[in-house]
């Protein structure tokens, strides 16, 4: 299998789907000649032309609103929001229109659209270009939220997201764009709502997603040499949650650590814990469930401060060690 980057995997998925289905089209800021702020759509304008690689004004509300309208009448738009932070300008069409149209109108509307958005810190882009806002998106019924952690998952999940009949928010971590991995050429899909055990283990379950999967995997591999057996569950889809896989894993290990970059307060780690607490896995817990999340702070600019604001590998390692040793 060829090794390609996460960025290329996302592009491959879009290109393949646009070749296959002419109702699929792209819209967003600077996605044409420029190739998108992160170069994801580079080269696509040449193949598909300006109508299907539709460059928009700087108008996030406009991009997402137009995507929703087009989706309601049979198109399958893929909207790119340049930085996830800017989705806040477009929450109205996303949450009040796209998410609710089907339900409000008695099941008669479908809104098949994808909103792609790079999120996360680590690039020195500071407070308004570095957020992980997926918890906000997860709060709205009617929307699906996907956050792939590897090139393989990115392609398979994006193809599924494009073919899905619902609005899907597709969260790409900026630091993952250059990560390489094996990706098959040609079509394959990964179903939405199915988590993936990226590293099997028996001592503790780490539930995570996106960039934190990569970090947790590095820690799991290191600790396995000391006989500490960590199970890393990559959620892949944040809504709908694969509660079955989470519950089964916690029943096996008796300990749960949730890791995410999004800030702790109101973050989705709380949701994962609630799922476990309400399930039969509760009786298998042998320690308090813990979460390692972004600090409750806007992402700072300085590289050391920035790194201190979100979980790093050594934080994950320390937390796992403490939990396995019954320190809490």
């Amino acid at each position, binding site marked *: 299998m060829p090794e390609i980057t996460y960025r290329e995997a996302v592009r491959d998925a879009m290109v393949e789907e646009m070749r296959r289905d002419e109702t699929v089209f792209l819209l967003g800021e600077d996605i044409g000649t420029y190739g998108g702020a992160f170069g994801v759509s580079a080269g696509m304008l040449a193949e598909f032309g300006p109508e299907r690689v539709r460059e928009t004004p700087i108008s996030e509300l406009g991009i997402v609103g137009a995507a929703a*309208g087009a989706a*309601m009448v049979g198109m399958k738009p893929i909207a790119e929001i340049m930085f996830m932070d800017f989705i806040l300008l477009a929450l109205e*069409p996303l949450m009040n229109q796209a998410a609710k149209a089907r339900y409000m*109108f008695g*099941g008669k509307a479908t809104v098949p659209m994808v909103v792609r958005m790079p999120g996360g810190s680590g690039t020195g882009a500071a407070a308004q270009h570095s957020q992980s806002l997926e918890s906000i998106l997860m709060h709205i019924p009617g929307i699906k939220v996907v956050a792939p952690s590897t090139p393989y998952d990115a392609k398979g999940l994006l193809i599924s997201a494009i073919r899905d009949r619902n609005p899907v928010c597709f969260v790409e971590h900026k630091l993952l764009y250059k990560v390489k991995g094996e990706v098959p050429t040609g079509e394959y899909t990964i179903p939405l709502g199915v988590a993936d055990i990226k590293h099997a283990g028996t001592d503790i379950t780490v539930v995570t997603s996106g960039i934190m999967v990569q970090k947790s995997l590095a820690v799991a591999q290191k600790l396995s040499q000391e006989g500490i057996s960590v199970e890393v569950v990559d959620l892949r889809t944040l809504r709908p949650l694969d509660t079955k896989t989470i519950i089964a894993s916690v029943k096996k290990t008796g300990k749960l650590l949730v890791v995410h970059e999004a800030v702790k307060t109101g973050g989705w780690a709380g949701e994962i814990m609630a799922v476990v607490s309400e399930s039969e896995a509760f009786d298998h817990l042998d320690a308090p469930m813990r979460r390692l999340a972004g600090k409750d702070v806007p992402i700072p600019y300085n590289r050391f401060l920035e790194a201190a604001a979100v979980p790093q590998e050594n934080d994950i390692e320390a937390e796992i060690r403490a939990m396995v040793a019954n320190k809490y």
Partner: protein
Amino acid sequence: MTTWKKEEFDNLETTNVLKKSEELGLSHEQLVEMYRTMVKVRLFEEMADKQYALGKVHGTMHLSAGQEAVAVGAGFAVNKGDYLLNHHRGHGHFIASGADVNKMMAEFLGKDTGYCRGRGGSMHIADVTANNLGANGIVGGGLQLAVGVGLAIQMKKTDQIVLTIFGDGASNEGIFHESLNMAAIWDLPILYLCENNQYGMSANVTRVSAKTPFKGRAAGYGIPGYYIDGNDVLAVYEFVHKAAQNAREGKGPVLVEAQTYRYFGHSKSDRNLYRSKEEIEYWKTVEDPIVRFGKLLLEAGLLTEQKIEEIHAEMNNEIEESVKFAENSPEPDVNDVMEWVYA
């Protein structure tokens, strides 16, 4: 406070329906049908108010009595198959586009036989299969959906247009500008119909808008803009029809601002503290769109007093039947509360 500016209207007042209808290519039957539809809208709204008073309505509602000429003039000026995206004072637009009042009344009473099977209510009536993409509870919410629908039409190369109806209030939302800009740069087939009823809830339009009429804003986006008498149903028909043609021919969007007035309060909690009884009375008598059109039809000999009475009785009957239909309809099954969140 008088905020409408008759002298600024771009239309000439309709004084002779025979002459005007000939210009517009409307048959005499169509004129009577327009009158009949206006009466139907009025009676629907009055019945809605009555149902509310009787405690049969669970939520609130926003009634369009007084604005019938806008709904009917526009509804008759577009084609079947054109898309409609309107606002939450939208009963009239649906009726004018040929909606079934039984299903509307059922939705209003939250019944399973309603257009949205009781999930939407008065503010969210839609009939997606008939290209009525829904009334919107968010002020200005439909404006940007219209851009997407316009894009889809352009890409599919059909000869449809989007009629999006919004109010004076929505014109001050940012979405108004984002929508007009996008539609203009891409020449999308969108007809922006601003239904200016002079009040955004209690806020008088001149108090909250830097410059009126709103048609002036069209120039900022390089598109045509018109300010017309929204209580003159044939004037509305004329300008909406003209704008629709423009859009259909690929010449891009048009903004039409129709000046009108709402009789009821904003919603049921409104006690009309912000406007005078005299003002409301003036509009209800001198400017009433149904009275004005009826008078012209009488003068032209297309209607008689007796015929007018018959139309009222006939429409009244239809609306009463809709209430019976709604009342006899089942409530939605609560076990289905989670249905249709996802496709």
